[in-house]
């Protein structure tokens, strides 16, 4: 077995719990939401019956939404008040070289480029996923709250605005679901490097070897020039 020193802490307990709350609420929201959108399919109808009918399904959906919004608020608050989370957020901000990074990854995968660009703490793909989820959560929470208090909303806005809001909520959710399921699940489960599952989300630890391979710039910052 690898030595304890061979591992570094990538995610704290609080970050791991945030992640667990995030994905469990998102899974519940997806199941309860998509079954309503695709209510014509037999599978969706079966799931809706399992969920206790259309109206109870809505209650589950709103409860999960509250958990999601709470998690989101906690994340924002920690970015503001915790030094570590603040640094985490700053590392997530897109930089100039992230633009060329996407092209480079594509070229590398096509075999047009021998080496991957040297990544820092978060790769451009990880940043993209972080922001995609973040923006989706903001959009879906806002449009979801509007649907929740539709009569209140319609005191100010006309009916077509709520119809539009409905469209945005349902389609944005579909795009978000597609990105998460297809891409994120590939990256952390089916990806041949980590199959069947990357355990970072549970242990919060990555090996130094992995860090050196996936995030060489961070490795360099932490341990010097690969001489360790």
């Amino acid at each position: 077995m690898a030595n304890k020193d061979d591992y570094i802490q990538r995610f704290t307990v609080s970050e791991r719990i945030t992640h667990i709350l995030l994905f469990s609420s998102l899974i519940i929201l997806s199941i309860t939401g998509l079954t309503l959108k695709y209510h014509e399919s037999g599978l969706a109808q079966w799931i809706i019956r399992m969920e206790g009918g259309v109206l109870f399904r809505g209650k589950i959906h709103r409860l999960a939404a509250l958990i999601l919004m709470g998690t989101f608020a906690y994340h924002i608050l920690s970015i503001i008040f915790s030094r570590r989370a603040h640094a985490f957020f700053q590392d997530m901000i897109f930089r100039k070289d992230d633009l060329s990074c996407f092209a480079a990854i594509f070229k590398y995968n096509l075999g047009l480029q021998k080496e991957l660009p040297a990544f820092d703490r978060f790769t451009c793909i990880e940043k993209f996923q972080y922001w995609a989820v973040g923006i989706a959560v903001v959009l879906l929470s806002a449009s979801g709250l509007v649907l929740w208090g539709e009569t209140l909303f319609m005191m100010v806005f006309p009916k077509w605005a709520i119809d539009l809001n409905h469209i945005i909520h349902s389609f944005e959710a579909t795009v978000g679901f597609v990105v998460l399921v297809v891409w994120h699940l590939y990256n952390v489960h089916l990806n041949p490097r980590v199959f069947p599952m990357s355990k970072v989300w549970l242990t919060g630890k990555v090996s130094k070897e992995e860090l050196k391979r996936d995030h060489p710039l961070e490795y360099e910052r932490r341990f010097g020039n690969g001489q360790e």
Partner: protein
Amino acid sequence: MAKSRQIFLLSILLMVIPLLVGAQERRCLLCHGKKDFRAKDTAGKERSLYVDETIFRGSAHGKLSCVDCHLDTMELPHGKRLKQVNCGDCHYRGRTFGQGPAIEYLLYRDSVHAKERQKGNMKAPDCASCHGTHDILSRTDIHSRGYKLNIPEQMCGRCHTKELADWKASVHGPTAHKGDLNLPVCTNCHTEHGIRRVADPGSTVYATNIVEMCIKCHGDFSIMQRYGKNTEEVESYYESFHGVATKFGEKNIAHCASCHGYHLILARNNPASSVNPERLPATCGQPKCHPGATANFAKGKVHVNPKNRESGIIYWVALGFKWLTITVLIVLFIHIFLDFLRKVQERRKRGA
């Protein structure tokens, strides 16, 4: 000799029987053929006991004789009051003539009308209340009570007067349809014999069943086309949350009649209509629906279909999202495919 006398008597008898049968009708009509033949009924009310022979002979039962239905006639003149005719003797159990076993009788037995009578409410109709007695005509006869256009006024509307008046003033009424046989009459939604209470889940107009009644016409493009309408309202309803929830059996969710009304359904541009833009906020704002609904509820199409170009911005945003989803999917799959190949290669190299 004796034998020939027997044959003679038998042939006389055979000749006389038909005369006797005919004569029996004559004998009934000796009294019942008189226009002023009257008697007091059990309630003490004076009733006419006159039977117009011409009308009876012209009716659907004109070939029968009196005693075919009035089975308890044992002697003429019959001293005591005869029992009420039981239509089910022919129309349910079946006899050598008559309609034979029919579902109508069973349907009626479970209907609200029959149940009310069982409870002792004799105002509820039995067969004769709607169909008449000696003057029953085939429903295809334009003078029949059961002829489609006569049903509301000559059958149901005799008791259900408010519903009749509402229906007559509605878009479904005869004024709006001018003799058009496509109009819905009472029985098209409520059925004929098996009518049930609205609150009965077995009713065709129960909250979760009523949409099925409306879409018999409103979901049929070939019918709607004749009135310059289409079936988009039905499609958009089934796509809406109201429609989905109703389909899943929720009964406190808006169905067609929740907004459009039941008997007094009026066109949207009629100021008295519950779906007129002026009145829509009050309709949506019913206490158990969206209390506090404002005029904004009427701003925008109600039956909005995102798949229809006429929906404007909603159509375009939905279309945009659809293509965004498709593009994202394609790009992701290409990326994943390439990434996967590359990493498999990498692994083999390392393994080698």
